């Protein structure tokens, strides 16, 4: 496969983001307000318990969990990709891809990677400051092997998030307005992926159920691996389920595209 064209796409992605740098910057700045809210609410929670543990977390490890979610989300969560894809389809922009020797999924994946790369570079300074502020809460893994496993899991989480977003955006082939569907998915991701709170503070029967859903593997799982909350046999099972979801999401993304293109009428082309 000729990769040069994808390098070019990567560059386009970077430039796209730079055109709207203010938008980008403000988004990153406002993103830290909810983090402050989270720190305050958990500080109040732990003040009530008199410094006790909550679901296996002490105050320090709870805050460190949320710091890691911020870092991970900057690295892997698609921000505007699904909206761009949907509008490409709706407005007939994909016509130009159908006639070019460029795979649309590959194209979007490259753009996604370039957005994430730039986003990370820009937010790394504020994130580093926050990590510096809470430096005494940082707990690095005991085991050397945890590092590569957590990174592998994070990479798969990125894939799952992207393929799900991509598949949803493909709905634009069938329906005009995909935002309701996207927001329904967001709400599940928000509450069930570990963004709002670590999943293991919920009742065991519920986390047992969540273990089989993809949301767990979009954010919570790689962080739990890094914090060494999940070890041994459970770690292997988890990675297994995550790998399954990764390939399943990939296949669905491909399938949706193939089906969609067959239906496509090239409006506006």
């Amino acid at each position, binding site marked *: 496969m000729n990769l040069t064209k994808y390098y070019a796409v990567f560059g386009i992605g970077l430039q796209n983001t730079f055109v*709207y740098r*203010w*938008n*980008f910057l*403000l*988004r990153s700045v*406002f*993103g830290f*307000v*909810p983090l*402050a*809210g989270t720190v*305050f*609410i958990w*500080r*109040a*929670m732990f003040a*009530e*318990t008199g410094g006790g543990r*909550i*679901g296996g977390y002490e105050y320090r490890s709870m805050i460190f969990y949320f710091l890691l979610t911020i870092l991970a989300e900057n690295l892997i969560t698609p921000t*505007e990709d699904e909206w761009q894809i949907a509008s490409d389809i709706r407005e007939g922009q994909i016509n130009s891809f159908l006639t070019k020797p460029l795979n649309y999924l590959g194209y979007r994946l490259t753009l996604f990677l370039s957005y994430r790369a730039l986003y990370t570079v820009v937010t790394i300074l504020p994130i580093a400051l926050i990590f510096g502020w809470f430096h005494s809460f940082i707990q690095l893994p005991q085991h050397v092997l945890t590092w590569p496993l957590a990174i592998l899991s994070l990479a798969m989480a990125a894939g799952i998030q992207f393929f799900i977003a991509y598949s949803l955006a493909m709905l634009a082939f069938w329906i005009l*307005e995909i935002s*309701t*569907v996207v*927001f*329904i998915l967001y*709400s*599940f991701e*928000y*509450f069930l992926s570990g963004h*709002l*709170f670590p999943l293991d*503070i*919920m*009742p065991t029967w519920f986390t047992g159920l969540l273990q089989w859903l993809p949301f767990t593997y979009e954010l919570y799982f790689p962080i739990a691996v890094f914090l060494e909350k999940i070890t041994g046999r459970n770690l292997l099972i988890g990675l297994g389920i995550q790998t399954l979801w990764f390939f399943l999401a990939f296949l669905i993304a491909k399938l949706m595209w193939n089906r969609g293109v067959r239906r496509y009428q090239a409006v506006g082309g």
Partner: protein
Amino acid sequence: MDLKSTPIPPKRSLGLLRPLKRYFEIYRIMFRNSLIREMNFKANFILWLLVELLWFLGQIIFVEVLFQYVNQIGDWSKWEVVLLIGTHQLIGQLFQAFFYVNVANLPELVRTGKLDFLLLQPIDSQFAVSTRQFGLDNVVNAMVGVGIVVFSLLKLAILPTLGQVGFYIAAVALGVTVHYSIMFFLATMAFWIVRAQGLIYGYYNLFNIARYPEPIFRGVFRFIFSWLIPVIIVANVPAKILIHSFEHPLGLILQLLLPTLLVSVGTRAYWKFALRHYSSASS
């Protein structure tokens, strides 16, 4: 129905009330238009209803999870926090019903130059931009918020006095004003920052902290977000009016009134300033 059959009232001497009546009449027409439009997309209406319900449900579950471990958070009991979240829902949804879509569209109007058509109308520009569409699904969800508030009051065994209810409604109205002003302020930045979608995320991120009990916030953060960007007190003040019968509602509402005046006047001034810098994209 023929829209032309309801003309804007002719000039009659009604003194100071006349402009007000005219704006009311214009609003009535736009309101009816958007209801007709909304009913053309019934599936969409129901889906949006579902979206908001899911978000709301998630927040209630969050509170449930938190109170598994503690009996109170910053001297707020569980049902007091639920009442706070219900109030936050009520204010947020009322804001969304009347203004959200319109304000969220402002950056796009600026980018495409369509704002010109609104500026040409012989009505106040901020009014014209802010009142074009109305979201009926949000009204339903606002009622869900009211239901949760009433349910929490039952659980707390509180029967508010008529005065408390009156002050509560007034505080909710002030809260809607704060939501509107802050989001309008953010959207107005679109005159300088061409693609301002990020600002809409700004709105959600700011009001994310509005559903937490006020006492958990400390220091400079608390000062900034109570007085300059008063998102912390928006839902807390009305909730306290119902819960804290020992505090006089007048004092509480003043705490909200001053920052509300500040942000709404500030936003208005910023809008006027921004308009002077507007160079249409279409010409």
